[in-house]
């Protein structure tokens, strides 16, 4: 959790969406992009650890496996099989929204605390992923995303709103 907060500590002006992360089924980080130059940078290794930590916690919640997503779904007071794990994480400096697809891919969006309609943003990112990543014949499933079309359209969607 400390790492998550570190990643998001701000130095710049208030902007709307700070960063987008995509995790594959196994909790590996397959996409990471900052939209605010004022963010503190993490090393790429730290990002991978962060993704793994988050995944574990989320999926404990949903599928009884081992860390943030996982833990949250296990400690859910209701029946653990119905919990979808961590969805929102709020702090003074940022809010994180997680959206997990039916196939287990997770989309994390970090944004300014009072940013409304984050679920719409996450779903739109999912849509772009479905279009420009999954329909790209050169993309290998579960592997890091290096798709120029996705980068371009994601920036076109997020940047004008800032």
């Amino acid at each position, binding site marked *: 959790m400390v790492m998550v907060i570190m990643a998001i500590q701000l130095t710049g002006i208030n902007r709307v969406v700070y960063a987008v992360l995509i995790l594959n089924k196994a909790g590996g980080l397959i996409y990471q992009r900052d939209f605010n130059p004022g963010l503190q940078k993490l090393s790429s290794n730290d990002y991978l650890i962060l993704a793994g930590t988050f995944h574990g916690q989320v999926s404990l919640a949903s599928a009884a496996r081992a860390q943030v997503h996982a833990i949250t779904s296990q400690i859910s007071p209701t029946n653990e099989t119905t919990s979808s794990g961590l969805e929102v994480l709020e702090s003074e400096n940022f809010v994180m929204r997680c959206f997990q697809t039916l196939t287990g891919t997770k989309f994390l969006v970090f944004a300014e605390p009072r940013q409304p309609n984050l679920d719409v943003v996450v779903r739109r990112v999912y849509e772009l992923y479905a*279009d*420009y990543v999954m*329909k*790209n*014949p*050169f*993309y290998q499933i579960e592997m890091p995303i*290096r*798709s*120029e*079309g*996705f980068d*371009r359209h994601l920036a076109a969607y997020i940047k004008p709103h800032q």
Partner: protein
Amino acid sequence: MNRETSPFRTPSTGASPTPKHASLTASTNLRYSLTRKSIYDRHLNRTKTSELSKSAFAFLFGEMVQHAQKKVYGVQDLEKKLNQHGYAVGQRFLELLLWRDGRTAKRETRILGILQFISHSLYRAIFQKAADTLEKVRENEDEYMISDNDPLVNAYVSVPKEMSQLNCGAFIAGIIEAVLDGHCFPAKVTAHTAPSELWPGRTVFLIKFEPDVLEREALRVGG
């Protein structure tokens, strides 16, 4: 003679489908309709309601590219393969297009005529829009360019850096090549990426005619 009472066949409706029939097949689209008619039983002249899903096409095209990639040794080889796939489509499509034009169909005999046919009629029939420009290459007498700002086949394709030479528009190039061949204008058509600021996916189809095409054209102008 006994009338055929098979439930799988309905009596022939003649040349044009009746409105009732049309609405029936339009609602069920490509699947089998209530009358058990498949896409092959429908009239060839249905153009209005025959739109296909862009996503379905993107997945199909993606699979085609992946399949073509398995058996090739490099970008040029891959483009050739895609060109061949397009060629097969073009051959069939030209036939269909001319058939649909019926009596007004015309066999183009001039270079400019055939190029306009491709950039307007053919392009519109396939992609529902005309090609964006049709130009002549100034330096070479036998080369022409048709450009498309955002080719449908490349809509979701992001070519990796190590294959930057590749343009999957080679498939469309193959279609164009087949149409030119079908009109007796043998030519070589290649697809090249030529991005502009507004259109990052802009593609140019370079058409290089065989020498005898130009020879024939010169004779016609002279006569």
